[in-house]
């Protein structure tokens, strides 16, 4: 089976130690996490993990189930790049004098969809957001002018098809306000979830 980039999205409670619990699921299988972002979600008290790994679908299925099994995890989705809208952000620091002297800054910014975040006497910081190729382009453009420092953020992704998790959570909690009931929509998507 083909390995490709998968975006794993996990909705979790905001708990100390959960990052470790989730990270262990990857590390015990010796799977390297390519990118990891954790942030609050649109729902109060619920955090959202975005994890990118390169793996086969079969492995990702099993990982997703293992993550979802953790007590403090509400729901896990996984998607290929085609199914998500994703972005990474990059910052570039270059010497201001060279840039000002040698470059048509305006054109550089326009061509790369970048913007200047800080302009100081000693250096200037630009920012771009986009897919890897896009943020890479500006590195190439700036390298000849003495790029001092470069940093890129983890990936954040939004699922194209989903109506969002909020609705789903409301559904869960309506159906399961107390002890007994449990949603089992896992099995609705049996082909998507149970086949490996």
């Amino acid at each position, binding site marked *: 089976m083909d390995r490709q980039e998968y975006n794993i999205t996990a909705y979790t409670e905001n708990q100390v130690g959960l990052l470790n619990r989730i990270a262990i699921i990857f590390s015990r299988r010796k799977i390297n996490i390519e990118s990891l972002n954790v942030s609050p979600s649109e729902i109060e008290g619920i955090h959202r993990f975005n994890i990118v790994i390169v793996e086969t679908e079969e492995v990702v299925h099993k990982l997703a189930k293992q993550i979802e099994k953790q007590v*403090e995890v509400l729901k896990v989705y996984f998607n290929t790049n085609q199914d998500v809208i994703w972005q990474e952000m990059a910052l570039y620091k270059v010497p201001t004098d060279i840039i000002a002297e040698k470059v048509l800054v305006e054109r550089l910014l326009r061509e790369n969809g970048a913007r200047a975040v800080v302009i100081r006497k000693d250096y200037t910081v630009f920012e771009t957001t986009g897919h890897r190729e896009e943020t890479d382009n500006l590195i190439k453009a700036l390298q000849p002018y003495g790029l001092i420092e470069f940093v890129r953020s983890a990936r954040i992704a939004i699922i194209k098809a989903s109506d969002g998790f909020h609705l789903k959570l409301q559904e869960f*909690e309506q159906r*399961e306000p107390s002890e007994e009931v449990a949603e*089992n929509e896992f*099995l609705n998507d049996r082909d998507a979830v*149970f086949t490996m």
Partner: protein
Amino acid sequence: MTGAVATLQALVAEGVDTIFGYPGGAIIPIYDALYDFKDQLHHVLVRHEQGGIHAAQGYARASGRVGVVLATSGPGATNLVTGLADALIDSTPLVCITGQVFAHLLGTDAFQETDIINITTPITKWNYQVTKAEEIPEALAKAFYIARSGRPGPVLIDITKNAQQQAFDAPDYRPCTHIRSYRPAPVVRPEYIEQAAALINSAKRPFILWGQGVVLGAAEREFRAFVEKSGIPAAWTILGVGALATDHPLNVGMLGMHGNYGPNVLTNECDVLIAIGMRFDDRVTGRLDKYARQAQIIHLDIDPTEIDKNVQTTVPVWGDCKETLPLLTALVEHKAHPEWLARFHDHMAQEVDAVIREELFPTSDELTMGEVMQQLNELTGGEAVIVSDVGQHQMVACRYARQNQSRSHVTSGGLGTMGFALPAAIGAKFGAPHRPVVAVIGDGGIQMTIQELGTIMQTGVDVKIIILNNQFLGMVRQWQELFHQRRYSFVDIQSPDYVAVAAGYRIAGQRVDARPDLRPALARMLAHPGSFLLEVMVTKENNIFPMVPQGCSVAEIRLR
């Protein structure tokens, strides 16, 4: 009240009657409070925290309740690690409470500080560090709920010393019944039950594999009803043993590496395989790519991560088998499969000829492990709780012990932890005080936790201990013989005079090395009021057969 008192009140409110533990600096406040709880909480002072947690496991497995352990910070807490790993893989409900250094000292390498939360994250179902007294009631309520619901497992609560000492206005204790992100009991989906029933009704050679899920779900009756109505031969994993009585006509034996011949061979001939509360462990399946490829597979399990993990199912039945089995039974046809069942019996007859007869009724002079189990069966009538350690004797105990009722065999299945049996037997006796408890242990394993004889001495708990002494680390020796050209590398192990050691702990004992003495000694052991240690000298180089060699298919099981 103080956090320490709140902790103990929570235990009482959860119905805990027995706790196993060992004190130390960081948990002294809880021990101090325990002084006033003597009437409500029976504390068993073990000799090592590993003994404490294995005892709690034995208690939980024999009683079906949550086992509780107390330990101090640092070395006390780290001594729980093996037991936590064991309990997680064998789905044993435990709540471990560890003391921790003062909250303001966390992360400073304070005296006896270890980061037990991070150490135990991969080997607990859930863990949590309490740093304020106010957190205690809720943390413990969650701990008990998580430990025993869904697929059970061990939980660890680490409580800093200041939280134990702090006084606070404790609210009335409220048990936890719901956690936003945790759904232990899935809603059963009738369409999958229907599909499973249709598959079963059309099967020519259906075969049931059951595991501990049946026991954990307390679904023994539901299971038997299903087996009896469908008339399908059923085989067990070592943790499933006893859910259907050993001599039930449809119980066709044990699965796996040292399981019975028929169930292993015929796994690769059945047309529908119904797996109930078992997880297709590699010791059961052998080589996966040659495992039951011809069969349609129905898997009943409460844990969705087990479904399709190792074996791809045709029909998944996600749910508690206590709930799913009756639904399935209602839809399956009343049937018998006499010819198919006869094939299991044929294989069993072959196995009796090749292995079992000589093992249980040996013609040579030396004693065998099997005949010890055979004599024990005859004397106890299958009523005893057997607690076995790990090695050849474990396989013999599992293969040959007769079990009339569920929760009768406590053993370390998934982790294979030597040293498990002696403490687990102590716990099992506290968990099932009205049943005889017999520990079956190798000469290697007993020496790993022999200090727990001290716990037996002090508590007066009645545990019968059988040491099957082959003067070897037998199971490793067997592998070295079969797969490493008899290069016996560090497997001959010397023993102390066990009877004298027992006597040192004021425990009665006897050593047997001749056949005529065996039965009288077993009878004496069983009749003895209180604990008894019986050492039986058995054949040094005996092998456990049948065997599925590692990396082979279950159908390639060797009788010799």
